[in-house]
């Protein structure tokens, strides 16, 4: 049977046995995943910026009221994170695919988005963890210096607090590296395969 005969046969068939006939199925699927990732990244960034604003407000107020420069340094760290996310989103908006774009444009935009997230999360220490850490270390160092002659109990409480802060930062770092290996790298491989298949054989 020739392909033209197959085509005639295909079009006369009702295809109730499973294989979907929507010619835009792949494009719709790629776009749905692209939009879904874009929406969750937007929610994440929005929450981070709101959290950064709250951190800035709290530490600025505390720093001015107590006249403590280390708390103001913490506020500065929070402001850096918030501003970094806003500037990053602003820069990335030009890579977005228009809603009526082709499969190739959509795949390229999705790949750019995923690659950028991999870069962002792999470097999370430098833009997300380090800036607030500088203020925190200064704050805790100042307290430790003040408490150097305090009772063992007070020093232990301070030690536990430092340990908890360290564990939280380490946990945030690990969680993000896990997201890179479990979510973003498989998605990048999938997109690269699709793009390779589309652009050349």
């Amino acid at each position: 049977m020739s392909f033209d005969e197959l085509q005639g046969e295909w079009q006369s068939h009702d295809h109730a046995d499973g294989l979907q006939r929507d010619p835009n199925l792949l494009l719709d699927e790629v776009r749905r995943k692209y939009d879904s990732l874009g929406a969750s990244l937007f929610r994440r960034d929005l929450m981070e910026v709101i959290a950064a604003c709250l951190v800035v407000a709290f530490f600025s107020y505390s720093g001015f009221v107590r006249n403590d420069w280390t708390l103001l340094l913490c506020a500065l760290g929070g402001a850096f994170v918030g501003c970094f996310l806003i500037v990053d989103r602003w820069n990335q908006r030009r890579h977005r695919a228009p809603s009526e774009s082709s499969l190739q444009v959509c795949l390229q935009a999705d790949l750019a988005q995923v690659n950028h997230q991999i870069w962002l999360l792999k470097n999370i220490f430098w833009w997300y963890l380090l800036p607030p850490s500088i203020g925190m270390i200064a704050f805790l160092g100042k307290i430790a210096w003040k408490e150097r002659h305090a009772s063992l109990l007070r020093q232990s409480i301070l030690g536990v607090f430092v340990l908890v802060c360290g564990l939280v930062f380490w946990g945030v770092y690990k969680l993000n590296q896990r997201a890179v290996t479990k979510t973003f790298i498989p998605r990048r491989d999938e997109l690269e395969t699709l793009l390779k298949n589309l652009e050349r054989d």
Partner: protein
Amino acid sequence: MYAAIRRLPQVDASLALMHLDGLSYREMSDVMGISENYIGVKLNRIRNKLADELQRESDEFR
């Protein structure tokens, strides 16, 4: 036929379905974002691949 299409890479399967549905090269080019000439080249390869698969299956069946 369904099984043979399912075994194709996703992009090729999508092109095969569009072709079987009777979409023009222009329409496929708009959806895929590649040139009409390249659509023709790809469809030719897909057609050959599907024909080989179907031929092999019918030989095994006999």
